[in-house]
């Protein structure tokens, strides 16, 4: 187990190095070669004031990134958590109800919601905030004077919802389709003929056989969520890593682009490592 962990950790680190090289190359290519920038990636220093952070968190040192990091991790946690919970539970439920003709309708609401860009969600929230609450968007000046900071949670939830909807629809579809695919195999018909109940076949045979594969799907939506995070954070003026990336891109602040890229790659790599460890522990390599 430890050997396997060390091996996968090494692989993750190699991936991170590759990502870092690709990021540096992309930045240099984008700004230096195509953009004719006077500054090159090898000229930048991490000790200089972090200009994009000054506007976002009020601090121009790297310490100012910590609140942004926390804010974005909260979003990722909420969106991915909802994706895993709803995607698996209702994905499996959709597959379980496969014998009913209308079982596809189960996915429809999520697919519809997922097809609506986060942009529209932003507008809906803005309109509601404006007319019902008399406050624009996030109204960051609203301060909860006592008790838990519900505003912070609400703001995070508003950003996480479009990402979560997107993740859930994808997760539900892939989980449901994979199970239905498995349920179409000949052994299932054999079990039916042998007199097993539908419930026994589904839970004790199909799902048990697919456990490892379903676990492998757990981080499939993470890149999607992280990619969406960039746009949704900017659209909502939510101060997180996505806003930091866009701000860094606008200001041609290479270390900001690099750090954000590595952060995303790090999260994906870490999730992959955990997923691999779980799958390995299930003995389904």
């Amino acid at each position, binding site marked *: 187990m430890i050997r396997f962990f060390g091996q996968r950790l090494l692989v993750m680190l190699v991936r991170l190095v590759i990502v870092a090289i690709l990021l540096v190359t992309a930045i240099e290519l984008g700004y230096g070669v195509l953009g004719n920038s006077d500054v090159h990636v090898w000229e930048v220093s991490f000790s200089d004031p972090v200009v994009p952070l000054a506007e976002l968190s009020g601090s121009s040192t790297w310490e100012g990134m910590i609140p942004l990091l926390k804010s974005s991790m909260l979003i990722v946690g909420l969106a991915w958590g*909802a994706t895993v*919970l*709803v995607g698996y*539970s*209702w994905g*499996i*439920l959709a597959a379980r109800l496969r014998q009913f003709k209308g079982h596809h309708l189960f996915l429809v609401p999520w697919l519809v919601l997922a097809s609506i860009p986060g942009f529209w969600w932003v507008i809906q929230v803005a309109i509601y905030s*404006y007319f*019902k*609450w*008399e*406050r*624009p*968007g996030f*109204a*960051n*000046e*609203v*301060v*909860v*004077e*006592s*008790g838990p900071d*519900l*505003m912070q*949670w*609400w703001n995070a*939830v508003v950003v996480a*919802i479009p990402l979560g909807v997107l993740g859930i629809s994808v997760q539900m579809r892939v989980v449901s389709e994979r199970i239905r695919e498995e349920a179409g195999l000949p052994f299932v018909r054999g079990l039916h003929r042998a007199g097993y109940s539908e419930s026994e076949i589904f*839970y004790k045979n199909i799902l048990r056989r697919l456990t490892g594969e379903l676990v492998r799907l757990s981080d499939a939506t993470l890149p999607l969520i992280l990619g969406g995070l960039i746009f949704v954070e900017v659209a909502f*003026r939510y101060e997180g890593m996505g806003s930091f990336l866009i701000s860094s891109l606008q200001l041609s602040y290479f270390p900001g682009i690099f750090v954000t890229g590595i952060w995303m790659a790090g999260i994906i790599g870490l999730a992959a490592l955990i997923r691999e460890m779980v799958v390995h522990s299930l003995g389904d390599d």
Partner: protein
Amino acid sequence: MFWLRTLFYVSPLAIAFAVVLLFREVSHLQLPGVGEALTTSIREPIGPLDLFTPISGPTREVRDLIFDPLLIRDDDLNLRPHIISSWDSQTVIVIRCFSEEAAGEAEAMIMSEEYLDEDMTVLGLNREGSVLTVALEGFIPDFETRLVGNFDPGLLGDYLLVRLRLKHSIQDSLSTFLNSSVEKGQIKMLDFEGDEVANLFVKGDTDLFLRELELYYDSNLSLAPEIEVVGQQSFTSSQELSIQLRGDVKWHDGRPVTSADLLFSYGELTRPGSPMPLKGTFWFLESLEAVDEFSLRGVCQDTPAVMMESFEALPLLPAHLLSDQSDEERWLKFVESPIGCGPYRVERRREDGGIVLAVFEGYFGTKPEQEWNVYRRFDSLESKLLALRSGRVDCLVPDERFSDWSMRNPGRVRQIRCLPRIQYLVAWNLDTEPLDQNSVRTALAKSVDLNAVLTETAISYQEPVWSLFFPGLPYANRALPLPLLDLKGAENLLDEAGYLFDESQGARVDEAGVVLTLKLSVNEADSEHVRLARALQNQWAAIGVVVEIEEVSWEVLLNQRLLTREFEGVLLSWEIPLKRDRYEAFHSRGVEEGGGNLFGLRNQVVDELLINLREENRPDMIAVEAHRLQDEIVSLQPCFFIGQSGRIITIRDEAVEVVRPSAGGESIRSPAGIGKAGLERSRPWWRRSGKISTSPLTTPEGRGE
């Protein structure tokens, strides 16, 4: 396992439930608002409400709402009773009569007004043996001589008055002397003036007594003894100030404001090492003591006309909260949420750096109609605009984006320009070369184009200095005749002073070829000071004067430059005081280390004018002296007055009105504005006009807004 599966399948509903619950809670958070509070949008958090530190902006505004002054200025800027309800001055004359019978006869003559002149009003009369004590209303220098002059000479005692003055501890020292004195029998009467002066009334062989006294104190020179034989005199006099406090003033914690508080404040701020040293302001007061809970008596060594202005400048501190000076934490807690006795009390500090003020129910005066004042932050322009539209904000400290918006949308907000309160100046050290030359200083003043130096932002304006005195005071009705921009004239003055322009160096040089260079020290933490210093550097470079700007911390500037007077020029700002006494800033005696005369100005005419201003009571003569002082200061140029600045307050149009109580008890309404006495006097009476309806909001007691 059916139940487990069911739980698994319905678990997503828990997320939906949590989101709905959160939505309900958050929407609930929105509803309890600031109610009918007069809301000010601030940019910076409200800082410590410190009475000792010069502060400005909204923090100053809040502080002035919490603390009331001892005396107040009316609309014409005349000093009026406030917490100090009345004050009397009296001259107390102690007359030693020839005998007890003579004293009785003199007492009868005084009571029948035989010995009194027309301008004498007796406040009190007391006879103990042959000593008669008369208290006359007011301070008039020759009261005692005139009164005693009216006496029948036969009634007066025949004494030689010997005045002994020591540095301190005169009672202990004299007691020691008397224990060993052989000639002490000749002292017939004795009284003390404070801790430094003793009046000895001697009779008999006075030469022997005087010799003994001199011999004794010749061996005690550490006390700096001064023995003065005043001559044949049978009376002494002193001036006393009686102060009466209102009996119904309360601190915000319900405790009454008493003479102990005033005594504590006086003691705390006049002690050596005080955070706000006012010893110089109370130079006239020898001692101050409480007579009862609401009365105080001060013994004066001088009786200037500006006495009560000194009390106006004295902040009143709650003795019951702050008497333990060793507790630094208590002080910090106090300035965070202070207990004052003003019309508003601190309800709470907001987490966004704002503050909520509630009207003080126990306020002794007429309570303002506006019950709540909220200072809060709006982070985005959008939220400000929305708050403006929905009537949830009344006053704003605008930022650049808001200013741009308001320029594009005229009529939505209006600006109120407060009186200028801060003056910016460059203090010259007149003891250094070349600044010891008036022509150089004048040349520097003539070469600055103030239009290029002074600026205006959305929150403050700057303008040339108008007067040495607070704007609106009756004697500050003539502008300071500052030198006008005259580059040619400035160059001529420098040429005459021997500083000629050297083309090769691009600067003026003296006869030895040394470039005319000035070092201008400035507080590095004050961005406005630094900006002004750089602007002046550019201006003076135009006439070939090289200015090196030295940016140092305030501690260095204060301790290593100003207090030691080791500087050439320092860019400073000071608050324009309401008082007319400018003795500390310009009098020669203030040149000593630690004195307020930073410039090193030593001028007899200025000194005399400053003394006259302290003593003068006649309004027309005050104006004359004030104008002469201004003229002298301008001609001497001990400092270069850059400009003065005032606050600009932005209010939602028609959102605020001033509701002031009239003498008849009715409320007088007027549009929001600043009176002659400044924002401090006007602000407590600001009230939401209610012209824009707001959502059905409640009080600020809610959990959030």
